[in-house]
């Protein structure tokens, strides 16, 4: 995406983005402030969780992948040449770990998605039209109808505003050039499903 320019990103003004805060923490940690690592862990662990879960890992395997990502940072953090790249480095490492786990365990669960759906209260959210008011469970009813690749890609980009398209392309088995169009197509599909359901 040409638009993912590090310096001139519009819209990041209303609140300091997670990426900017991650960079600041990492700089402080590199400067010798050990508590800054704790802060970075608290900030980025949820984002890493959603990234590895997007690959369909079980809860236990996802937790392991997140832990290994942080251990890798402590060991190899010096490889991160620019502090501003820390967010991308963590997500790429997490995705690589998740992908390796996924490919070495044929048993990695697709089951949990069904469990996720079964545990949801069935909502009649017809009266809500704005997305801000759309209940997560109602949105999930539409997201789950998308194919696995769409679900994965959308979950990843929903938590990563500047995904590394090259790495993603490799993991998802797609040419780099098709990620942008696929992402648009997945969003269009979801939007039209919501419209048909009367929720947009």
């Amino acid at each position, binding site marked *: 995406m040409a638009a993912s320019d590090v310096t001139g990103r519009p819209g990041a003004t209303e609140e300091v983005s997670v990426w900017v805060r991650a960079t600041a923490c990492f700089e402080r940690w590199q400067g010798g402030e050990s508590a800054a690592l704790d802060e970075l862990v608290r900030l980025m662990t949820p984002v890493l969780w959603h990234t590895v879960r997007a690959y369909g890992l079980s809860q236990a395997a996802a*937790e392991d992948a997140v832990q290994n990502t942080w251990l890798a940072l402590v060991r190899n953090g010096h490889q991160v040449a620019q502090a501003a790249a820390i967010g991308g480095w963590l997500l790429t490492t997490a995705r690589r770990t998740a992908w390796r786990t996924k490919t070495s365990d044929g048993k990695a669960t697709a089951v949990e998605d069904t469990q*996720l759906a079964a545990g*949801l209260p069935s909502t009649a959210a017809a009266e809500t039209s704005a997305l801000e008011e759309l209940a997560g469970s109602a949105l999930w009813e539409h997201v789950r109808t998308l194919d696995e690749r769409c679900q994965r890609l959308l979950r990843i980009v929903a938590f990563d505003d500047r995904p590394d398209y090259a790495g993603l392309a490799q993991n998802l088995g797609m040419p780099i050039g098709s990620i942008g169009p696929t992402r648009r197509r997945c969003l269009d599909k979801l939007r039209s499903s919501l419209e048909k359901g009367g929720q947009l």
Partner: protein
Amino acid sequence: MNAEDRDPLLVAINRMYSELDPPPAGLTERVLAALAVDDLDLEYELLTMVHRSQQLAGVRSADDQKLVLEFTAVGMTVMLRVSPVDAGHRRIDGWVTRTADASGDAPDLTASLWQEQGTHTAGVGSHGRFEFAGVPRGLTRLDLLATGSDSAFRTTLFEI
């Protein structure tokens, strides 16, 4: 964020997953604990958990469940079977499979089990088997250290 990333639909998807599939309670604390007990002077390969399953058949309660864990790294696979001894203790049976190096022989291994209460060690037999007959429940990490060499393998922290 660029314009496309600010699509309200993506914002809604972010909120949905945060609500429906949040990180497990205590994950951040376990990460911090793992980092705190990581001794940086030891070089090791990370063993990644690829499988964890609970064997539920015929048990009366969660305390009686057997647990099977599998970890891999380049050149090594470790399986652990964790069975209950009593309410507070677990038995661990382990199997290590290694890809032999070019010379065909792999150095002897020692299994070292780290827990908050202390560390337990056991030799790995010639068929790759090792056991810990009774260790306390709780957060655990397994290290496999090769005798007379710097090579070491380490898992993340896991609950037994």
